């Protein structure tokens, strides 16, 4: 699956700027700015410092010259004055020196041999001495008075070029810039090394954050980001895309029966297969434990949804070979499109989810394309939920009972309690119309308690009426067990009715049983400890592991009606039923056949050794008073007519 790896987001043209690169650039820029500022400050400081030093030096020179020209000036000795001024030749910066007498006339001049001609210093006020140091157009003019015994004899003026100062400033700036660049270069090389480490770390973090370690597919987090990006792109480009949500049916079973290692292998192989079955541009994400999201990029065309769905189903068709196991994985997929079915990523996922539940409702292992009605049907579910809550309070629920007979004698030995809803508008509703909603919302827990109490009380009435051997079977939901309320509910029902626990049978579907075996085993063992019996409903449809059966705390199998329906003609069903019965015998369990409708079925089941049966042949689910009539009419002795009749 490594070939599918691409940097996130997965949409081309939107490269994510790596954090490391930004960090490097910022660090180098910051270092550059710091060096620049420091360099400028240093250079400016140095320039002014050098200039101040030059001024000081020149003032000293001027003062020395002034001291040494006092005598020549006094004795009118031009030669000596010129000689003194000439000694300034040692100072390279001095371009010229002039000795003025007290009247301001030039007495002696020294001029360095150069082409530079400094501009004349603007004249000061008549009779005033110029300032000791004046900068004028890139030149420095330094003046020192010539005095002897406090008497002012004249002044010495030096004209100093600032060129060496400028040259030095330029050289120093160049050195600063050069060393700064060298330092930046070294810093850059170091930063590049660190950046490589950061990049590696980032890639690793990305992997941890966005890659599912089991399948090497992008995970839910990546899917959400990618979807968001796709939605934004589709909006700006006016395009669209398809999204498929694939949920594996009964995957938990594989984990529970074959172990997580095999489960992971199955996911891996399936991920590869899904990926191979898709077109370039389609992407597979592992969205959850056994959920995959497949995004079909490109324009949404007629049949695009079907293409995705069929591709997914093809991937599931052939069994997966995992070690010694050949595993068939089934899944239900829901497909929705953007922007047709939703206007944001969240709504799109919800639409696909609804479509997927549609597929599950349609019998699993298929796919469904989102239809607007699905959104409405979820509204309908919400309405049912609200109404159902009221129904329990208003007493709109009813308990119907279906007889369970001994096949050989035809005697009614027990009944199964079944819930019905007397809906004020829609009439009497079968569980199929509301149990799913109740399961979904958790209302089934409350409803389960109501059923347990009602059934126990009805049983108590029948026992009072003399049918003391009769038992009642009550269906419980996995939610009652999961929430660990079942035991308490049973105890309350037993206490309120006072019936013998041995006459109360708990029915749990095979699906529910294998969902969370450990918790179930614990609860069911506790129930059996109280003397109650446990029957496995719909046996044969839940793919129970045979290994479990021997350690499950159960008393009965109820063979699913789907195996009974085509008896005695369907050879395969005969074989399955035969197998179940002999297995039950071997494990010391009882067997009940559900959905017995014909005498032929009864005859065959009896011959195969099935002890009990339930179905239209013996009686439909009826209100308790009707069942009482049935019981009374079947009572063998005559004085039954005098017995009190319960309702």
């Amino acid at each position, binding site marked *: 699956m490594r070939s599918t790896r691409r940097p996130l987001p997965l949409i081309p043209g939107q490269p994510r700027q790596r954090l490391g690169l930004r960090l490097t650039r910022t660090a180098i820029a910051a270092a550059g700015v710091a060096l620049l500022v420091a360099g400028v400050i240093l250079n400016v400081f140095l320039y002014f410092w050098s200039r101040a030093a030059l001024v000081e030096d020149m003032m000293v020179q001027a003062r020395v010259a002034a001291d*040494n020209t006092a*005598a020549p000036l006094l*004795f*009118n000795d031009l030669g000596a004055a010129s000689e003194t001024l000439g000694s300034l030749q040692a100072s390279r910066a001095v371009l010229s020196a002039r000795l003025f*007498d*007290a009247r301001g006339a030039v007495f002696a001049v020294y001029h360095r041999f150069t082409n530079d001609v400094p501009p004349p210093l603007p004249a000061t006020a008549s009779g005033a*001495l110029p300032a000791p140091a004046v900068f004028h157009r890139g030149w420095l003019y330094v003046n020192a008075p010539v005095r002897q*015994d406090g008497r002012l004899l004249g002044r010495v003026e030096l004209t100093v070029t600032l060129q060496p100062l400028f040259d030095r400033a330029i050289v120093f700036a160049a050195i600063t810039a050069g060393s700064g660049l060298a330092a930046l270069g070294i810093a850059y090389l170091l930063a590049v090394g660190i950046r490589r480490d950061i990049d590696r770390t980032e890639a690793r973090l990305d992997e941890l954050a966005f890659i599912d370690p089991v399948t090497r597919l992008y995970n839910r987090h990546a899917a959400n980001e990618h979807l968001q990006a796709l939605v934004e792109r589709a909006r700006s480009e006016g395009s669209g895309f398809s999204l498929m949500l694939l949920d594996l049916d009964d995957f938990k079973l594989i984990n529970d029966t074959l172990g997580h290692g095999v489960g992971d292998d199955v996911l891996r192989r399936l991920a590869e297969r899904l990926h191979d079955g898709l077109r370039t541009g389609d992407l597979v994400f592992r969205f959850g434990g056994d959920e995959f999201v497949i995004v079909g990029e490109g324009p949404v065309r007629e049949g695009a949804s079907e293409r995705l769905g069929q591709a997914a189903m093809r991937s599931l068709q052939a069994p997966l070979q995992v070690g010694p196991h050949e595993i068939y994985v089934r899944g239900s997929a829901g497909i929705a499109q953007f922007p047709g079915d939703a206007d944001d990523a969240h709504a799109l996922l919800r639409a696909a989810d609804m479509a997927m539940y549609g597929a599950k409702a349609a019998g699993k292992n298929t796919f469904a394309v989102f239809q607007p009605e699905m959104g409405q049907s979820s509204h309908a579910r919400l309405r049912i939920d609200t109404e159902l809550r009221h129904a329990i309070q208003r007493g709109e629920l009813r308990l119907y009972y279906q007889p369970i007979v001994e096949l050989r004698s035809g005697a009614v030995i027990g009944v199964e309690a079944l819930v019905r809803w007397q809906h004020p508008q829609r009439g009497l509703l079968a569980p199929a119309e509301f149990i799913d909603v109740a399961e979904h919302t958790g209302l089934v827990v409350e409803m389960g308690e109501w059923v347990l109490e009602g059934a126990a009380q009805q049983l108590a009435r029948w026992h009072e009426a003399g049918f003391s051997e009769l038992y009642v079977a009550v269906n419980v939901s996995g939610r009652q067990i999961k929430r660990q309320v079942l035991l308490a509910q049973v105890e309350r029902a037993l206490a309120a009715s006072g019936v013998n626990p041995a006459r109360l049978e708990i029915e749990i579907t095979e699906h529910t049983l294998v969902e969370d075996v450990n918790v179930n085993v614990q609860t069911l063992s506790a129930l059996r400890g109280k003397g109650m019996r446990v029957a496995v409903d719909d046996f044969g449809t839940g793919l129970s592991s045979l290994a479990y059966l021997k350690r499950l705390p159960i008393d009965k199998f109820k063979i699913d009606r789907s195996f009974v329906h085509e008896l005695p003609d369907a050879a395969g069903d005969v074989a399955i039923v035969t197998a179940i019965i002999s297995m039950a015998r071997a494990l010391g369990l009882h067997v009940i056949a559900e959905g017995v409708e014909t005498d032929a079925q009864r005859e065959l089941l009896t011959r195969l050794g099935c002890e009990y049966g339930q179905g239209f042949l013996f009686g439909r689910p009826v209100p308790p008073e009707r069942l009482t009539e049935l019981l009374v009419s079947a009572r063998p002795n005559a004085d039954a007519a005098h017995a009190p009749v319960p309702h």
Partner: protein
Amino acid sequence: MHRFAGSGLCRAALLALLCCGLVPGQAVERDDLKAAIVYNILLFVDWPSDAAPAAGGSLVLCTDPASTLNTPLKSLAGRPVHAFRLELHELAAGESPRRCHALFLDAGSRLQALPLRRQLKGLPVLVIGDEPSGADEPVAIHLDEANGRMAFDVDMATVKQARLQLSSRLLRLARRVNE
């Protein structure tokens, strides 16, 4: 600020001093120049502490009463010399030169008489003369006129004998320094 101010005398002295050269035949100007030079020389001389006048005291320049320089020199009286004031004193015949710090001897001055010379021996008196002198003369600085310019020679032996110190700046300007 640094007004170049001074008395009229001072200005006159400097005018004379700063004149580029001498014009022959202009005797008055030459005397002015000589007087200024004599004064300027005094600015570069240090007397031994036992002979120097007290601070603010008078530095006495003695002259021959017959000297032609008396008039221009008198105009310089009161001028500062180091921390002192210049005082002029015409030395009478036979008067001891002890009071003098400096002595100007004209060519052919009657003060050239032998007794004075003897008296000067060992005294811290700077003797300035304006004509070449013999080897045993006590004249330390000879003024001379050459090529229309004033120049001077220094006799260091005499200077040392008189325990005087001449500034090197003055020596630099001397035409000749005799050790």
